[in-house]
């Protein structure tokens, strides 16, 4: 059964049409790579899956439930299960790293302060961020901010994670580290959608791809199927020759 299913999705901002007729699905435990050139609306599509943008028409089903017409109060409940890892981390700059990680736990769990502390320490270790607990986002590097953002998104152990360019701007070592984290979660059965321009990472972690172009999904398929497509633009994109 599909955990996420998008049908005939349409979205525009004013007179600018972003998506005309987008449909795809992701099964449980799968990781879908949402790829395409800059400005094709990958992030808009991802944001719509968590209710940060509203589609003009079409349907979004999560675990078989139509959510595109959800009110904000209904989304609040769903967002405990569907996490969003922002491109820049989107950390709360008035809070320390530890307070950022504690935020979802304080809001949605019944853990004691001690349990929260242990959970945060363990998460920081997993993400190679030990020793940054008391630092503010402005005191750590961009790559570390990104990892803190990912760690925060995963604090509630969600069923679905939406990654918005998790490796953009990272060095090869940290890129590898993020790849491993995504693969670890995949092994645990977490469903994911990965928006990225980083094709090596996409091929390392994704089970299938959707290629966005001209407001629609131009091609869909497994990595091997995508590699075998005759479309020169897709081939150039995969090889990193364009965009």
């Amino acid at each position, binding site marked *: 059964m599909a955990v996420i299913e998008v049908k005939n999705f349409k979205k525009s901002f004013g007179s600018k049409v972003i998506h005309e007729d987008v449909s795809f699905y992701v099964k449980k435990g799968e990781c879908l790579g949402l790829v395409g050139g800059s400005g094709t609306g990958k992030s808009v599509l991802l944001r719509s899956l968590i*209710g940060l943008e509203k589609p003009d028409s079409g349907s979004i089903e999560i675990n078989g439930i139509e959510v595109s017409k959800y009110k904000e109060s209904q989304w609040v409940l769903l967002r405990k299960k569907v996490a969003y890892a922002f491109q820049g981390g989107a950390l709360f700059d008035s809070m320390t790293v530890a307070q950022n990680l504690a935020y979802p736990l304080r809001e949605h769990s019944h853990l004691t302060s001690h349990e929260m502390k242990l959970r945060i320490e363990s998460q920081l270790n997993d993400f190679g961020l030990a020793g940054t607990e008391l630092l503010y986002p402005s005191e750590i590097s961009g790559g570390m901010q990104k990892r803190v953002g990912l760690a925060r998104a995963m604090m509630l152990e969600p069923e679905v994670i939406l990654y918005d360019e998790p490796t953009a701007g990272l060095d090869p070592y940290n890129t590898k580290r993020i790849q491993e984290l995504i693969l670890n979660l995949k092994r645990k059965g977490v469903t994911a959608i990965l928006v990225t321009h980083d094709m090596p990472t996409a091929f390392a972690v994704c089970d299938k791809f959707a290629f966005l172009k001209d407001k629609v999904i131009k091609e869909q398929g497994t990595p091997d199927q995508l590699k075998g497509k005759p479309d020169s633009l897709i081939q150039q994109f995969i090889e990193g020759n364009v965009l």
Partner: protein
Amino acid sequence: MNNLMAIPFKEWAEDQLYFLGGLGYLIKDCLKEGFKKPYYGSLLIEQIYQVGYRSFPLVLVTSGAIGMVMALQFGYGLEKFGGKPYVPRLVASTILREIGPMFTSLMFAARVGAGIASEIGSMVVTQQIDAIRALGTSPIKKIVIPRVLACLIVLPLLAALANVIGNLGGLVVGSVELNIDAQFYLRRVLETSNIKDYMSGFGKTFFFALFIAIPSCYFGLNVKNGTQEVGVATRKAVVTSSLLILVGDFFLAKIFWIIEKWL
């Protein structure tokens, strides 16, 4: 010429309608979510400190200076008619009814309104508001309601303080510059001012608090195109709040006069 004027007016009118509609939705959301759990008491206390305690020196200086200037102007102006004994009553009544609450609110709009709009606007640009939503919480509850409530609690208290400091400023100038006996000045203020004078000014500050907090939150939340718009939102917040205070003051003054006649 007509055509040239038509486009800006149409855009302006659309903007105003959009603003009023947006404000209406924000108020509706605040009322809807304000009564639902969870409540964030610690965020409210933090905001009371930020908007209240830190505005204290500004209010102190402004109200003191206004009281002094008013006493000086009334004193010199009335001196030739032998009207100096009326200075305490005039200064007190003007401060309590109008100048104290209004100037405090205008200063508050400049300091706190601008702060709210720029802070929230920056949070929008850096996706922190999106993050609040994505983490299953409400920006209305976490950001807007604590700020609106803090303004509602703090502004009347600051205005009350401004009334006292303004009258003290008047007393200092009255006794030092105008040679009015300090005890006489104080007695006249207490004898001639009544609770109606005080309540008229004090009552308005609750409305002024809303005129400042809600548009400031609205403009902050509606920042869309990067950091440049944060500045625009801040400017709009201060201008709109100030205009609402000044224009609203007229209507509120009328309403309070009508209420006073009833009582």
